[in-house]
Each structure stands twice: as C-alpha cells, then as structure tokens.
C-alpha cells in the first residue's frame, strides 16, 4: 500500500518548502547570482578605482539624525590624521549625505549598455565607504560586488564540466563493465587519493604564466574541476551498475534498443536528482578552492577581482589588527558556502523518500 499521495515531484517540493533555512539559502543564492549582471549598478565604485589619500580608510558609520532632527542617511568625512599608520579621525563638522540613484562613474551593463546611475553614493560625489578601503584606497564593498562574478561562476562552470565528464566516462564504465571499468576506476581512485590542494598547486605551476585573464579563468576552472570529475565518475558508475539490472532496462534491451539508447534513454535519466545534489554540494568546494588559490596569488590576479584575491590583502596579522574590515570578503565567502550547503542538504532531505 502506498502511503504517499502526490507525484514524485510534488512531495519533494512540499518537503523542501517546509525547511525554512533551505528556502532562505536558495533565495539568497538566487539573489547573489541574479545580481551579477547588475554589479555596476549595485556597487558605488569600480573595482579598481583608487582614491588618493584614502588608503585603509575605515568603514563609514551611517547616521540618520543630526542634532536631533531626522535628515536621512549621511556620513561624516574622515580626516587622515596619521599618514604613517593610516589612522583616521572623524570630522563631525562635515556631512556627506547619501543619495540613491546617484550619478557615478560610468559603466556598462553586460558589457553593452552604458549607464551612469548607481544604487547609492555620496550625493555630491564625495566618497562613501561602507566597508572601508584597502591599501590602495579602493572601496572594499565595490570590490566584493565585482568579485562575485568570478567567484560564483568559476565554481559552477567547473562543476558542470566535471559532471558532464562524469556522465560520459562513468556511464560508459558502468555499462560496459569488465576490464575497461576496472581501469577507469583505478584511474579515478588515484586522482581522488591525491591531496587536492597540492594537486591544484602542481597543475597551477605547469600552467603558462603569460596568458590573458580570460584564458586564465578557463585554466583555473579546468584545474578546479579535475578532482570533482573523479568523484563524479565513481558515483555515476555505481548508479549505472545498479540500474543495469533493473527490469525496465532489460525490457529496453528486449525491445531491441541498441546499447547507447539504453544508456541515454533509460539509465541516465534516473540519476537526474543525484546529479543536482552532487552539483550543489560540490560547488562550495570549488569556491573555496579558487579562494585558496587566489589568496596565494596563484589563481585570479590583478586586474581581475575575486573574493579569494581580496583576501590576499588580509594575509598579515599586523595589518589585520589595525584594519580589521579587510576581513569582510571572508564573510561573503562563508555566507555563500554556508548557503550552498544549507540548500543542498535541504534538497537532499526533500528528495529522500525515507525522511
């Protein structure tokens, strides 16, 4: 007797909806990804815009009331008090009102549409640094927003490639069996045994150094994808192995289906849910991998921006003690990784018929 009423799609959907953390994470991630094309609009300044004499500027505190009256959001200017140690003092006499949809540096939406308005900024053009600046006077918030584009996509593209490779090779291996399967499994085991990070470093060291940022992105993506590929191959191969003997697969063989048709029409479609889960839970690993590489200056480098690369400025503990706002990029990495895991596990629980 079936105790479930509803299609196999409705039930996971309903169960997922009940997991509030999962839903919140999904919304957050969707928002982050959706914001990528609008990075120019959301960030007050460009990623490499330097402000003279504003190095290591602390985050502006936002005030709303001035002398007892509500005047809207504004900040005070900060005066460079100690140029050697870059310490600032608040100058309460100055008022920099924050406006919305202010005219700022020109930029292009999606590389095509020129635009000038930005979400917010100092109304009269004076800088507002919500998260402070780095050693070259660049606004950290803007750099984080621009870094999202690389950090969020490099993981995804890499994983998709890995999974596609996994389907082809793992599917083939599981279906064909025999000696071929044995060799492919041993090969993937060797890749898995290698310590991931050192493997990255090795591959990175053999990467040519004088290539364009575009090609660099591609190479880094490929490097990050390889360890995930090995895991995918094994996972998919195991699934194919167990499905090979299912009655409906036998029925397809008896219907005269050639081997490729059996694999593609009957076996692979069954693993759709597993794949989605796999992808979701692998992305954070790749994001952290990229962050790690870039942090060591081995991944994304200037003039591109990625979150890991932003962490590079926070390497020195002495610097951090003085200018702790340099850690904000770590916060966004943590938030993103956490959201992927929360969403992924909520999805896993929703798809699990026994939960």
């Amino acid at each position, binding site marked *: 007797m079936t105790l479930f009423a509803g*299609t196999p799609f409705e039930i996971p959907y309903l169960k997922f909806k009940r997991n509030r953390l999962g839903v919140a994470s999904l919304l957050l991630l969707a928002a982050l990804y959706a914001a990528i094309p609008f990075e120019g609009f959301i960030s007050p300044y460009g990623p490499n815009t330097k402000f003279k004499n504003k190095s290591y500027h602390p985050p502006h505190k936002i005030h709303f009331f001035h002398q007892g009256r509500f005047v809207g959001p504004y900040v005070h200017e900060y005066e460079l008090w100690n140029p050697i140690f870059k310490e600032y003092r608040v100058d309460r006499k100055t008022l920099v009102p924050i406006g919305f949809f202010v005219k700022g540096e020109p930029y292009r939406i999606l590389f095509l549409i020129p635009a000038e308005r930005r979400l917010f900024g100092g109304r009269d053009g004076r800088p507002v640094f919500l998260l402070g600046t780095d050693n070259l006077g660049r606004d950290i918030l803007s750099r984080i927003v621009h870094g999202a584009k690389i950090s969020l996509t490099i993981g995804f593209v890499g994983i998709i490639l890995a999974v596609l490779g996994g389907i082809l090779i793992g599917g083939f291996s599981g279906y064909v069996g025999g000696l071929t399967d044995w060799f492919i499994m041993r090969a993937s085991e060797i890749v898995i045994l290698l310590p991931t990070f050192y493997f990255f470093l090795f591959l990175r060291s053999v990467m040519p150094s004088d290539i364009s940022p575009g090609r660099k992105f591609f190479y880094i993506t490929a490097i990050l994808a390889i360890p995930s590929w090995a895991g995918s191959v094994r996972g998919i191969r195991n699934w194919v192995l167990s499905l090979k003997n299912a009655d*409906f697969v036998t*029925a397809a063989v008896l219907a*005269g*289906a050639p081997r490729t048709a059996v694999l593609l029409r009957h076996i692979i479609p*069954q693993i759709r849910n597993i794949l989605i889960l796999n992808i979701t839970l692998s992305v954070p690993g790749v994001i952290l991998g990229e962050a790690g590489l870039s942090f060591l200056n081995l991944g994304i480098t200037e003039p591109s921006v990625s979150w890991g690369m932003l962490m590079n400025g926070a390497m020195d503990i002495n610097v951090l003690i003085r200018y702790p706002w340099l850690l904000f990029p770590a916060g966004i990495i943590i938030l993103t990784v956490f959201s992927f895991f929360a969403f992924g596990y909520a999805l896993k629980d929703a798809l699990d018929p026994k939960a």
Partner: protein
Amino acid sequence: MDKTARSGTGSPFIRVRGLTKRYPLKTGLFSTSREVVHAVSDLSLEIPRSMTLGLVGESGCGKTTTGRLLLRVIEPDAGEFSFGEVSDVFALDREGLSHLRKKMQYIFQDPYGSLNPKMQVRDIVTEPLRYGGGLSSRDLDRRAGELLERVGLSPGDSRKYPHEFSGGQRQRLSIARAISSAPSFIVCDEPVSSLDVSIQSQILNLLLDIQRDLGISYLFIAHNLAVVFYLSDLVSVMYAGRIVESGPSRAIYDQALHPYTRLLLEAMPGRGAPGAARTADTGEVPSLIHLPRGCAFYPRCPLRGEICREGVPPLEEKRPGRRAACFMTG
C-alpha cells in the same frame, strides 16, 4: 505472418532441447574455486502455437532463469531453441537476434520496476517499435493509443507517467508493451504474483483474451499452482534446474506421475488443508552447487529406491503425451 511448419507436421512451434546454464561461484578476488551453481540442467520443453505452457516450481528451481535464457537476456551454456522458422535462436548473431526480438517478448513480475519511471507511457509501450521500424512519431502515438485501449486503459492517458497508475494498471502497460510488436511468443514471468487478488483475475482474463485474438504462445512461469493450472494447456514442473514432469494440465492435475508434483498439488491452498493426510516431507531444499549423482529429489521422495541414487532419471514418455523423470513411476 503465419508460416507453415518447416519440417513435418509434428514439429512444434517452440522447441527447446538440452538447455543448460551454470554460474561460476566466486569466493574471493583471486579465487581458484571451481564451484558452480547448476541453475538449469539439460532442460527440454515444447510449446505449440497459440497455447500456454505453464512452468512451475518453487523458488530456486530455475524457472525464471529459463525464461531469461530463452530470450537470451542471459546467454546459455548449451542447448538449442527452435522457434518457428528459425532453427536455433541460440546460434543467431547479434544482428539476427535483433530482428527476432520483435517476435519474442517478456512480461515482468514487478509492476513497479518494469517501467521506466521517467518516461511517458506512450513511449514505454511503443518502445519495441521504435528501433529500425521506420515509424513516424505520429504513427507511434496512434499505435500507443490503440495499445492502451486494447489492454483496457484509456488512450487519453498516453502522456502520463508510470507512477500515476496502480499496480494492476502498470501490469496492463507491461502487457501493452509486450504485444506492441505483434510477437508470437511471450514469456510471462509471474505476471500476477505482485497484484491484489481482486486484480489478478482481471489480468489473467486479459492475457487469455489477447492469446485468443493474436495467437500468441505463452510460457507462463509461476509458483501459484492454481493460477498456472487455470491458465495453461500444458504444464512442466521444475525441480533443481530440471524438468521432472510435463504434460497436459488437466491430466497432471487429475493424476500426477512424479512424486514432487504430487507434493506440490497437495500443498495447494484449498486442495490439501493443513493437517489433512499428506505425504511426509522434510522440506529440504536441494543444493544447486553440489548436485547429487542421482535424482535430486531423493532425500524427500517417498518412492525412493537404490536405483535413484545412481543416475539422474531421464525425462521420458510414460504415457502418450505425459513425461516424467522418475525411475519409480510408470
């Protein structure tokens, strides 16, 4: 596509001789063990056109394996299988076999595992027509509707997915798929065992109707004797990988020749009540690995004698049309 019998009028439509299948037993990665599971040994059977042969036996006797061997889902180790004009199905190469696939089909026991859950039923039931047939997708759709109607389902449901149907309906879908390529032989592997009692009779009636209309021969594999005897014209009883008795179902029911058949008949619910006088039975399950030299039924047999230990009794004709593999009955 009726063909006249190839050689002589007495040659049955389906004839299997000496079918054998052994599985090597692996005890470890580098095992040198030569032990073997004798799943099916020297099996022979015949099925006339448009008739049903019921294959009965208890679990582990090899009946499901036999069904799968005939369709070459598993490859046999020995044997000949003549099927209509084809002199030996087992000797066909890949290409020859793929042509034959349309003529032989299979119905599975499990209504839940035998249909691809991610495929629409119209694609499932027309799958045998899809490869090398040259039918357009509109033709296939039309055929799907016809098939659904033939098995008692609504053609409008053709875009649904298997999970939207009940167990009995799914079995009907399996039947629809099996008849879609107009086969002349279908192996039915316990098609009603997983269904509710009130649905079983619906499916059995459907199978009978289809046989009558399309002239299909069935190999009906089951362990429920009442169902097998109801449906089958001929019955073969299996024990430890061999046929121990075969003949017309009514004749066997009225008087079984082999002692194991008698045991099975007595165990039929309704025929022999618990506690009614019956032959004593140790219930020992025969081992398919260490086959004895003589008759495998020896330990449980009330008729056993010394001769039964010395060699496997051959399946021979004891009366016209009745065969049994036993030294002690005549």
